[in-house]
């Protein structure tokens, strides 16, 4: 059967996801709870921003992740385009909703942080604006994917889009910084990153690691169900799932 070659890695990857997920899920939950406890409770109060700065422990790692996931998405897309690896297509497209969620979380926490800092939920701050545009880029990928009926074609089309996006993101970010320094009056207080004292930096880095772990867990869960959907008619999957013909 030809499918065996084409989908070769899918069955083994499906089983790998199945084996890893029961370990990854509890680990993510426990470590996330520990990280939140560390950041929101144990870490010292900032002398300038008081308790409000603690939202940083969610905001900053999630901002890092929003960019990182886009890179992963574009990289998987490039692999899918060049080598036509089916698994890469799935990884590429399953990254999009996760990355969009991280971007939305960044915007949301940024607005919550903005209220005590600027006195308003939204000001046209450079980093928030870049993040908003990143959200548009993610939404574009998701919208294009859902507009093309053929799934494989859709994944390859969004791969092109994501690669164009990766080339553009630094330019967009730089242009927003440029715009921001020229248009913002000096009265607006900028985000004051708390001094990187070790007692604050440690929980921040820990949370960043936990967010990465969450990304892997969520990606594997999504991949497992999308492989199931793609291969539901195939012999190996029906055997796996105990479906009688």
């Amino acid at each position, binding site marked *: 059967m*030809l499918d065996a070659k084409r989908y070769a890695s899918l069955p083994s990857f499906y089983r790998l996801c199945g084996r890893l997920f029961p370990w990854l899920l509890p680990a993510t939950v426990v470590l996330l709870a520990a990280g939140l406890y560390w950041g929101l409770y144990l870490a010292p109060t900032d002398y300038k921003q008081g308790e409000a700065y603690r939202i940083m422990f969610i905001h900053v790692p999630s901002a890092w992740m929003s960019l990182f996931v886009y890179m992963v998405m574009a990289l998987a897309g490039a692999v899918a385009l060049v080598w036509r690896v089916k698994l890469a297509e799935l990884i590429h497209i399953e990254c999009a909703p996760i990355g969009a969620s991280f971007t939305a979380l960044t915007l949301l926490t940024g607005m919550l942080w903005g209220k005590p800092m600027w006195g308003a939920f939204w000001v046209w701050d450079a980093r928030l604006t870049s993040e908003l545009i990143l959200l548009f880029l993610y939404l574009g990928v998701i919208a294009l994917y859902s507009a093309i009926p053929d799934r494989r074609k859709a994944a390859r089309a969004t791969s092109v889009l994501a690669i164009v996006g990766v080339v553009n993101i630094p330019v967009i970010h730089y242009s927003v910084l440029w715009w921001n320094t020229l248009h913002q009056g000096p009265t607006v207080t900028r985000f004051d990153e708390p001094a990187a004292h070790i007692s604050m930096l440690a929980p921040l880095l820990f949370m960043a690691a936990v967010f990465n772990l969450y990304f892997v867990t969520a990606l594997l869960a999504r991949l497992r169900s999308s492989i199931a959907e793609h291969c539901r008619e195939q012999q190996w999957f029906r055997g796996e799932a105990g479906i009688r013909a």
Partner: protein
Amino acid sequence: MDNGSLKVSNLAFSRDGRMLCEGLDLVLRGGEWCAVTGANGAGKTTLLRILCGLSEADAGAFHWRGLSPALERGRYHEQVLYIGHKSGFRSELSVAANLAFYSGLGRARAADTVAQAISAADDFGIAGWLDTPCAKLSQGQLRRASLSRLLVERASLWLLDEPGVGLDDDGIGRLERLLAAHLERGGAALVATHGALAPPGRPAAHNLRLGEDV
């Protein structure tokens, strides 16, 4: 190694996740043509689109005169001409303008100058409406116009998808004579067809029926 032939080995292709053909082997020498038949949806168009380099096969390989579109894209396309269901002619431009456009795209021309090359298209009986915008042509006329690219451009392998659709008896006759002359010159052709196509003195060397041997 025989460089004058189309070699298809172990080709497999699918459409929308449905397997259409597996393990297809075919050798077509210069001067031979192959009729591709099969029910609607059997994969005739898909096969031709793979051979002309528009789509990719799931497995297998093929070469024309030792060239493959994956490795020597430009040189392969110099040799191969694909005429599909769609004419490829812009409706607001005249037949002559469309032919002139295609004759300037890097394939060998029937004559040195574009104008002379276009006059070769007269053989298809389109001389009367060379200057008519394509929007005003009937389906059959448009089909004749797009097939006259076979006269204007010089490609050694023809991939024709249902070339007879919309043609009258006269048009079919001209197409058959054209195909025979092409084979005489040492060219080859793969023709997807429902009706019988009988180039004078040149019966199909192969008859590939899709959708049965799977």
